[in-house]
Every structure is written in C-alpha cells, then in structure tokens.
C-alpha cells in the first residue's frame, strides 16, 4: 500500500489473517449479540491437551445462555447462607439457653434474610411481581422450593426477632394482647428457624447446579457440601463478631467444622468434575476469589482455634470467615456465569461424555441420530 494523506482515516492495522474461518472470531465487547446478557470480553481459553478433539462452534458464540443475574444474586447466595447458619445457631442457643447468642443470631438471621430477599427482588426483571414466587409449589424447581423455604424462614425469623426486639426495648412496644401471642409463638418460630436453616443454606447449591451452566452443573453432587460448609463458617463468623466469647463456644466449634468441610469439599468437588467444566473455577476473577476464600478460611479457622477466647481475635477471625464465605459464593457464581460464555465449556464436556458412552456401547441415547 502506498502511504497517502488518507491513511489517518484508517484504523491501526491488526496482524493479517487469511480468511476468517469463524473459529475464535468474535466481535469487540459492547456491540450486538454479546451485549445481550454477556458482560464484556473474557480471556480466550488455550486449547489444553491434545487428546481432546478440536471442537468447532458457531463463530465462537455461546451455546447456552448465562442467566441475567447480577451481583445481587451472588450477594443473596452469601447472605442466605449466613441467615441459614444463624438460624441453626439461634435454635441451638435457644435450646442450650444462651440468650445473647440466641438474640444476636436471631437478629442476624432476620437482617441477612431480609437484605438477601431484597437483593433477590431487586434482581427480578419485574420486581413488582415477586409474590408470584409463591404461586406454585414446584418440586422440579429449586427456586420454587427455595422461595417457600425463604418465606418460611423469613416469617419465623421475623417472629423470633420481633420477640427479641421487644425484650430488648423493655417490652415498651405498644403490642397489647399481641405480645402474649408473639412470645408464645417464639419457641416454635425458633424451632422453625432451626429446621429451615440448613435447607436455606444449601438449596442455592441445588438451584445453581440444576441449570445448564457447565461449571455449576458439573459440580452438582458436591456443591451443596461446599455451600453448607461455607454457610456454617460464615454464620459462626458473624456470631463471633456480634457475641461475646462467653457464649460463642458452639459458634467457634461450628466455624472450625465449617472450615474443615469447606477445605475438603472443594477439592473433592473439583476432582469429580469434568476438567474442562471445572476450568472456570480456576481462571480469572473467580479463580482469585476462590483462592483468597481458602486463605481466609484457613486464617479464620486457625484464628478461631488459637485465639478464640480473645474477643478481638475471635471477631477478626469471624470477619475473615465471613469474607471467605462471600468470596466462595461470588467465585462460584461468577465461574458458572463465565462457563456459559465460552462454547468450549459446553461442547467439550458434552462431546467427551457422548464419546465415552459410545465407546462403552451405549449408543441409543444421542440427540443426533442417523435415522
């Protein structure tokens, strides 16, 4: 090309490429299809081992669509876990007569479940229709069952927390005859919190893995263990912050158990996932989040074990644990979203399992047929 005065109109020349076969070509972020539902550009995965057949795709476009969920949903995953764990702690405290822990855990449960629910509603496309969540009871829909759990837990923690607040304010609230009912219902509400606590903490794992998002789906058998562990350590962490050490013995114990569960559950989970589907857990932001979540979990766990009797060490450990749990939820959440955006994570595991079944002589269950 001759240089001319019009060269200034040209865009900088990227390296030359022969004809675009489509493979790997994609548009810049922010335009066209990518803008719909996907967030910005993401790193190009390097094709790993040679054993995997080179996959083809339609212009590198996603096969499955990531849900339109934003940070609010990840926040709810975290807060729902904290609420569930707090419900269990409050019930335990209720049964073992630890009034401060009971009160604080109940109030924590109500706060987190409340804020979490608001976050969920805010993420709806039509927030004014949030009540439709209770339109049906669908056993096939973890979101439906979860909504009922959430509603039950929210109601019971509301009653229980209201009793605590009333006591806190010296029964000065103008409740009249309701007061007797409220206090009469408190133990049952507390029991309900205990009953629904672990479902609330764990159902979100089922919700995520009951999707076509490759990473979440591949983690389906083990993700609940990670989530309940994470919830346990987070709720304990919060209790260690809110409650004097005198009453947090059980919380500290639960924190340590939670950390142990968390540290075991994740590697086990990853080891049982398709290696390609697990990749997003280790790459980019989710990878960093999950790495730090482990570090903080260890730190919090060790802090609890070694310095749990000190109010400040306990609180710091609690904060570490809370943060760790948040990072776990955000990491897992983002990894799943990311896994939808690159067709490789959908296609390669599917091809592999299809080939494996065929190799095993199981040929009758393919969606592609020759006749």
């Amino acid at each position, binding site marked *: 090309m001759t240089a001319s005065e019009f060269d200034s109109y040209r865009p900088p020349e990227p390296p030359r490429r022969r004809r*675009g076969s489509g493979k790997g*070509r994609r548009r810049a972020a922010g335009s*066209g*299809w990518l803008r*719909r*539902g996907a967030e910005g550009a993401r790193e190009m995965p390097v094709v790993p081992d040679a054993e995997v057949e080179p*996959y*083809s795709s*339609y*212009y590198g476009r996603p*096969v*499955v*669509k990531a849900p*339109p*969920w934003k940070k609010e949903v990840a926040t709810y995953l975290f807060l729902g876990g904290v609420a569930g764990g707090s419900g*269990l702690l409050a019930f*335990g405290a209720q049964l073992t007569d630890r009034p401060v822990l009971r009160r604080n855990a109940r109030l924590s449960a109500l706060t987190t479940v409340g804020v979490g629910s608001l976050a969920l509603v805010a993420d*709806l*496309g*039509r927030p004014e*229709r949030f009540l*439709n969540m209770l*339109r*049906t009871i*669908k056993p096939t*829909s973890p*979101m439906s069952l*979860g909504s009922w759990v959430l509603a039950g837990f929210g109601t019971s923690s509301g009653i229980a927390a209201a009793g605590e607040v009333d006591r806190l304010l010296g029964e000065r609230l103008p409740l009249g005859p309701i007061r007797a009912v409220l206090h009469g219902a408190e133990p049952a509400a507390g029991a309900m919190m205990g009953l629904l606590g*672990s479902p609330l903490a*764990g159902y979100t*794992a*089922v919700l995520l*893995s*009951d*999707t*076509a998002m490759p990473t979440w*789906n591949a983690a*389906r058998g083990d993700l*609940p*263990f990670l989530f309940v*562990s994470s919830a346990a350590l987070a709720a304990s962490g919060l209790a260690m912050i809110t409650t004097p050490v005198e009453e*947090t*013995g059980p*919380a*500290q*114990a*639960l924190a340590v*158990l*939670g950390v142990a*569960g968390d540290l075991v559950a994740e590697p086990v989970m990853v080891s049982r996932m398709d290696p390609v589907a697990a990749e997003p857990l280790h790459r980019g932001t989710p990878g960093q989040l999950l790495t730090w979540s482990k570090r903080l979990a260890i730190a919090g766990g060790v802090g609890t074990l070694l310095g749990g009797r000190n109010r400040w060490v306990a609180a710091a450990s609690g904060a570490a644990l809370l943060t760790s749990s948040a990072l776990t939820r955000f990491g897992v959440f983002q990894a799943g979203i990311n896994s*939808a955006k690159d*067709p490789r994570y*959908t*296609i390669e595991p599917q091809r592999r399992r299809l080939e494996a079944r065929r190799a095993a002589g199981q040929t009758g269950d*393919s*969606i*592609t*047929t*020759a*006749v």
Partner: protein
Amino acid sequence: MTSEPVQQRPNPTGDAHYDHPHSRRGFFTDTSICIGCKACEVACKEWNRNPADGDYEILGSSYDNTGALGADTWRHVAFIEQDRERIEEARESGRKLVDLGMPQVGPPQERGVADGAASSSATHTPDTPEFRWLMSSDVCKHCTNAGCLDVCPTGALFRTEYGTVVVQEDICNGCGTCVAGCPFGVIERREDGLVSTPAGREMPDTVKKPQNGVAQKCTLCYDRMKDDETPACAKTCPTTSIKYGEREDMLAAAHERVAQLHEQGMTEARLYGANPDDGVGGTGSIFLLLDEPEVYGLPPDPRVPTADLAHTFKRAGVAMAGMALATATAFMVGGRR
C-alpha cells in the same frame, strides 16, 4: 400410544392433564432445503411484535446479523461457509453415525428403508463440492423434558395442551432461572425491548409495547394454534424447509427425508432431536442437519438439568443434615468448653 415401551416415556400432551388435550405439535426444520432468506425471522417478529435487536451492525458471521436466538429473535438463521475438507469431515462423521447402529425408533417398516439407504450409501457417494454454504433456521426445541419449564418457580412457563412450552408473560417475574435452565440457550430475559431508529421515532400504536423484564422465547405461535392456524414461520417459509404439524408426522417426515438423503449418498445428513431416549426426551422441534450440531451452535449432548435433580436433592439432603448435625455437635462440643 399403545405399545409398552412408549408408555414409560413421558408424554408431554398426555401428562399435561388438560380436559381436552390435542396431539403434540412440532416443527421439522429440514436445513437441506433452507435458502437462508430469513422470512421466518421476519414473520416471527412481525406476528409476535418482537423488537428488532442489535445495533444495526454487521456481526461478522457471513450473512447472519442477528447472531443467536434470544428474547427478541425466536427464529434465527445460521450461515456457515465450509470448504471441501470440512464437507468431507461432515460426511465421514455422518457415516460413523450410521455405522453406530442407532436405536430402534419408529415402526420397523420404516427402518427397512433406512437400513437399505445406509448400506447403499457407499456405492452412491456423490461428488464432494469444493464449497458449501449451510443455512439453518434454529428455534426453541419445545423439549419433551424442558429445563426452562421445570425450573420456573412461578408457573409462568407451562406445558400447553399441544405439548409445547410457553411463557405466560403476565405471570413471569423475570427471575431468570429458566435462562440458565435451558440446555440450548434459547430462552432469554428481555432487557431492552424498544425499537430505536436514528430519529428516535415512536412506534405506531399497532405495535404493542413489548414486554420487558420477562423471559421470552418461541411459543410455537400458541395463540395462532388456538385458532388452528400454522405458526408464522412455517407458514411463510418459501421452500417448506420449516414444516409444522403433529409431531408424529414430523418425526415420520424426518425419518423419510434423512433416509432419502442417505440414499443419495449424503451421509452427512442426520436428525437432531428425534430420539426419545436422548437427554431431553426428544424435542418438539426436530432438525435435519448436514454437519455436527455444534457447527450450528447446537449442543452435541444436551441433558435437561432436572434429570439429575433427584440425585442432587439427595446429596443436598445429606449436606443439609450434615450441617444440622455439625451444629448439634458444635453445641455439644462448645457447650463443654
């Protein structure tokens, strides 16, 4: 539906419990005769009043400028340019599929034809062209086991009396779970449903304001179906690449067509969604493809996520019990401290 094995399989219309169920309806999209005119895309948008989407820019995928199925595009025509090498690969992968000895579907008489075709294919191999341009109109699969429908918490998604899967836009609250639940990436939440033109003009009143914030996808023209009309895309399709009818008939047509193509030596032809034993129990929209599904942006081995739900619930139950147990333990341990 009298034979034994069929009864064990889900029957979308029968299982839907309507007072007056109809036979299951579906599409058969024969991509081998698609001319890529996109009439289906336009007719669909025009009927359903869906907004145009995108930024009016060339997307960089041959003549495809709508990109993919989504909240606003319920029919999407894919364009794939292939050279000789790729055509040969497709032919070979198809031949392998034939050789696998696929499952018994359909009555045995039909199988006879197909078998004959498969065995004679070797003798009839046609010239491989230097180049081909595949066009294929994609659409919601209306799965027998539909992920979107299963995971919907509100009941906005439902199985119609025609065995199809439809969103009720007056119910949906836009939770987005169905988007993640679809193994084909079909359904999407409509975020910005306004047609914008350079002059910023408003749409005339005949164009209804599109439903925003709710999940949207092909309804197989449920409203038209109620009045015995053909879905807009199938009605307009100039070459009958998109066929519509009772799903049983569509299935039969698909079997017949693939056998015919195999007889002509086109072993690259294959069906997608015709197998009731696949991961979604077969699809209401059956396709005839000329290459591997992923070439068209379709998953090679989709599986409805809820197929594993019982197992996941079991594992989750263990985990939840574990958590409760751990808490109990903690109180015992911590109490002694």
